[in-house]
């Protein structure tokens, strides 16, 4: 039985590279730190299940490769650091005052932290195409998660469609695992890669990354996995996926498949910062919202910092350094180190972040999410939860629904269980297209709390246990006039 933690100096949400690095460093600096994570073991999305997979299963190690193995050192340092760890624990609310709503093992409790670092990472960008709600359609990252977490791989005809390095990484990993890959459909726009490459400074220092990517493509070619450059993708089937169709080379193709894995890059998981109404910015290069932060990851909300991909996509290596920057700043604010020490220790981390940003700028332009952004047919479902189509939304907008929250309450789009995680970006883009206005003025959904399903029984118990907890749920803190 776990004992609810009532207080800590520093609370960290998320056990990926950013959260692990931040927690380890903060604890090493003497800050009383607790890391909360929904997963059972440290690693986040990129290093999921790293400890167990490093101890055994050579086959899986070969499939996942050397970059994955690098996560072990992070997890080990975290384990040694003395930071508290609460796995299988969901954070369903964070308040601007540093209170966290925690749900663990069927019980809810509240904890108060002197400072909070959100390291909630990224999620795959939702890729709305006709038929994407059919069983048999999944994210490419979802298939990768199955591999890492449980050693589970597809064994029926599988097609991967999308854009960006993870598409090819997953394809290569599945190939190595012996999965029946029946096609790769690259949706990226021709020429962008070359343009991006030309703009990449210090090419040689990223040669390793580029060669790695190239080696995946060569291996897939050698294995004769059919390759297409395609667009206007559709998942076809009556009650489950039967085939994938798309335009390529001037005609429509149709490939039978049991599993379609889609990927259009990743976007920040900003559910908590959005619910806090931290100031957000629209990142044109990444076609996504992220919270605005200073160089330490501090947001516009006093006690809250963000580190890693949750603060803007920059990849796993950058996440480690951004986690350490946020930890140094937290240790300084909590009185453990001086400003001078913070600034000195930050130098190498900052240089590393800047280096990664250069490579990210290349990836952003090479894999701009063209398909996912521009092509949304009227009969395509935008909101998976409430099954609202793009056509229905366009009709409402033309009737005069020009406010995203008004559109939300009227159409129910974004009101379902996922609370807009799957449709917010799509709807914002669709509105800005239809209204011919910029996406910043369209804004983002006002989120309903809690951000994770919370059984009423848990909430009732919480009320009995802690009278102070009463104001937590209904209050939306932060400046209400501040649109994100």
């Amino acid at each position, binding site marked *: 039985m776990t004992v609810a933690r009532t207080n800590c100096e520093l609370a960290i949400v998320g056990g990926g590279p950013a959260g692990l690095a931040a927690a380890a460093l903060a604890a090493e600096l003497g800050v009383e730190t607790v890391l909360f994570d*929904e*997963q*059972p073991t440290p690693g986040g*999305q990129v290093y999921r*299940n790293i400890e*167990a997979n490093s101890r055994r*299963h050579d*086959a*899986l190690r070969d*499939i996942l490769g050397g970059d994955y193995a690098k996560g072990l050192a992070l997890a080990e340092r975290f384990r040694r650091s003395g930071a508290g760890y609460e796995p*299988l624990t*969901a954070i369903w609310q964070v308040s601007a005052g540093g209170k966290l709503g925690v749900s663990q093992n*069927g019980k809810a409790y509240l904890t108060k932290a002197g400072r909070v670092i959100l390291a909630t990472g990224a*999620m*795959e960008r*939702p890729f709305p195409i006709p038929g*994407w*709600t059919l*069983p*048999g*359609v*999944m*994210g490419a*990252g*979802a*298939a990768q*998660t*199955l*591999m890492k*977490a*449980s*050693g*589970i*791989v*597809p*064994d*029926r005809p599988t097609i991967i469609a999308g854009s960006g390095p993870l598409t090819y990484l997953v394809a290569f990993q599945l190939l190595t*695992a012996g999965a029946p890959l029946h096609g790769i459909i690259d949706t990226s726009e021709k020429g962008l890669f070359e343009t991006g490459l030309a703009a990449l400074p210090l090419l040689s220092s990223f040669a390793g990354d580029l060669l790695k990517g190239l080696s995946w493509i060569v291996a897939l070619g050698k294995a004769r996995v059919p390759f297409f450059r395609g667009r206007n993708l559709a998942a076809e089937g009556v*009650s*489950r996926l039967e085939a994938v169709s798309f335009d390529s080379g001037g005609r429509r193709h149709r490939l039978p498949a*049991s*599993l379609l894995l889609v990927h259009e890059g990743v976007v920040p*998981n900003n559910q908590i910062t959005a619910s806090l109404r931290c100031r957000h910015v629209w990142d044109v290069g990444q076609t996504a919202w992220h919270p605005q932060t200073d160089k330490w990851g501090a947001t516009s909300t006093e006690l809250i910092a963000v580190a890693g991909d949750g603060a803007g996509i920059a990849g796993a290596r950058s996440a480690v350094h951004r986690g350490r920057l946020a930890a140094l700043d937290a240790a300084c604010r909590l009185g453990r180190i001086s400003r001078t020490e913070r600034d000195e220790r930050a130098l190498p981390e900052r240089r590393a972040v800047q280096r990664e940003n250069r490579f990210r700028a290349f990836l952003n332009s090479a894999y701009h999410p063209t398909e996912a952004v521009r092509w949304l047919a009227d009969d395509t479902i935008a909101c*998976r*939860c*409430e*099954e609202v189509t793009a056509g229905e939304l366009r009709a409402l907008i033309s009737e005069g629904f020009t406010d995203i929250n008004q559109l939300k309450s009227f159409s129910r789009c974004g009101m*379902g*269980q*996922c609370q807009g*995680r*799957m449709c917010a970006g799509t709807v914002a883009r669709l509105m800005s297209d239809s209204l011919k206005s910029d996406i910043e003025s369209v804004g983002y959904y006002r989120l309903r709390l*809690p951000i994770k*399903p*919370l*059984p*009423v*029984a848990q*909430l009732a118990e919480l009320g009995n246990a802690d009278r102070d907890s009463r104001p937590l749920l209904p209050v939306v803190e932060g400046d209400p006039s501040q649109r994100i």
Partner: protein
Amino acid sequence: MFRRLWADDLSATIFLDGRPVLCRPGDSVAAALLAAGVERFRTTPVSGADRMPYCMIGNCFDCLMEIDGQADRQACLVTVAEGMQVCSQFGTGSFGTL
């Protein structure tokens, strides 16, 4: 649709709608069910369409199931436990959830 790279450690049993499903301790409920060939996890409240996990990391909510009597649990975030009772969730199933 899926297979396990190794099947040496299927030492836990959960029950899906009363039927036993063998799994590896440490699996998420969603992973164990996908490995066992399950494709319909829930049906939607609006049209009643079948759904299968889409994201596997807690964001899409298409893996919602009733687990040990509680509706709306995200099967991709719940780790299997011996004897766990899992039910496909039809429609809202959301009694008692905020």
